[in-house]
């Protein structure tokens, strides 16, 4: 279960920024990925929302310093959605 979500998020990030999925790890930050600026970040959030079918609050979208933190935040959201 860990990894279905993490994999999906990493795949969407890789597709959005046109990089290899292997280059996206839990410690990756926006500054490590070419083209990941504030506009592209919004596009990424829209894609994640559509793909995962959840509403991502601005606090999570704006305050995830690493890909790992984003994945953990999304995991909690999903769990809350289910409960």
């Amino acid at each position: 279960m860990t990894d279905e979500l993490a994999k999906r998020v990493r795949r969407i990030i890789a597709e959005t920024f046109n990089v290899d999925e292997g280059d996206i790890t839990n410690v990756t930050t926006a500054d490590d990925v070419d083209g990941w600026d504030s506009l592209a970040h919004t596009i990424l959030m829209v894609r994640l929302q559509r793909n995962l079918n959840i509403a991502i609050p601005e606090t999570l979208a704006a305050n995830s310093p690493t890909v790992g933190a984003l994945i953990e935040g999304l995991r909690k959201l999903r769990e809350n959605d289910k409960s």
Partner: protein
Amino acid sequence: MLLRHLDRHAVEQGPRPCLIHWRSESYNILTYAQFAELSNRLAAAIKSRATAGTAGVVFVILKHHLMQLPLFVGCMRAGFVPSFLPFPSAKQDPDLYWQSHAEVIERTRPAAIVTYDDLMDGVAAIADKFGVPVLDIDQLEGEPETLSLPAEDSIALLQHSSGTTGLKKGVALTYRQIDRQVESYAKAAGLDQSSIVVSWLPYYHDMGLFTAFVTPLSVGATIVSFDAFEWVAQPDLLLRLIERFRGAHCWLPNFAFNHLVNTAPTDRRFDLASVKSLVSCSEPVRSSTFDLFAARFEAEGVPRSKLRACYAMAETCFAVSETPIGEGYEAIWYDAEGIEGACRAVRRHPGARGARPYVSNGEAIEGIDVRILAEASAPLAAGVPVGEILVRGEFVFSGYFANEEVTRAAFHGEWYRTGDIGFIDNGQLFITGRKKDILIVHGRNYYAHDIEAVASSVPGIVPGRVVALGVMNELVGSEEAIILAETELAELEHPALQRKVKQRIYGALELTPRKVQLVPPGSLIKTTSGKISRSENFTRFLAATQSEAL
């Protein structure tokens, strides 16, 4: 004059909404009567606390704030010259931000700086050195009093260009110049008392200042204003506010049209039938962007006929030319080699080999003359000349504040040299490039020199061996910054260095470069005089990128 117009609206249409200030899903309304009263109170507060006997400039450094427009007008009423400056965003390095503003504060010696609680200490650290009072917007109080109006030919406001240190210039505009612009542009734009403008544009930028403040308030229209940061994170908020308040006019840079298309919800339709005009400005207008936008939003009420192109700059208050309301846009094809090499614009058939589409920016609006400064060519040469765009007229500024040398260099006789390259065909103005080494990223101008200086200061980069390039990204609809920099560090250390360069540039300039490409010492191409050549490195970078894509 703006102040006289506002006084008239306060009497004649006092209860009508002047400003709808939206913030985080709620809003406040100021009527014209309330706006007048608030600006009078703030005028008294500024008058009693700003330093007398200086040049009278008041810097306003505020996030999106209900009081920012009444304060600006209050400064004018009290006889001061207000100027909005950008505020540091949450991710910016405060030290680098203040460094880049220290010189403008030192050169201008403002009579006061108005800011908000979080920034008080940062501002005071610089302002105290020059004895400039720093005032908290939320603590300003005063009793309204009747103040005499400033003279028509006195300076009304300063608009600051982007750039750090010596590159940051204050465009000084008089009440008369502003009034002429408003009169001419309101007519061209189709703005009147019944108009509703919806905007997220920041006010420290000419487009926000004139289209979401000075022009609509002069004609008695209503502004719905919200924060640019809120818009970037929730682009559809603009569409929701147009729908909710029956918005009719909106101004956006080219990239914003792409951003709206790229993030448009698939499960929600908007009723945008109230829109009369969406104007693209501040970035080169691209027909491919307009085509995408019209295809996505036509069914919701924004067909091609409502999309317009405008050419504008702070030095002419705002607009120079604009396409007519209701007529839409047209892409005309010209020979690309002719424009770039021979400096002649020769029409070609759409889709012809070697030809490129250009969108007309319309005819010059009333009150301004536009001409092209071009090399002499053979009398029978085909097409029209391409060269630097020069302007003169009733609303062209008279100079940069306290900067005579730069002002002199900016004029060719009575004509202002815009630094933009273009041509006029059949009365229509087309923009094809620019002379100045400026990158326009997401509607904001950045000097290549500034970006290079910041990157160059990062330990690990060979000082002075950096070039900043503006490369068009079709998907984003804007140029993006690409940094090429020399380093002696081993490849293993490159990712950390690239990250540092990106962070330093964002910290100082609020710009995220798309890419920082590190190369070994001696790799960047130099000119014969030993300087790094932007144009040759640009050509080589593009060629390498294209061959990679093949």
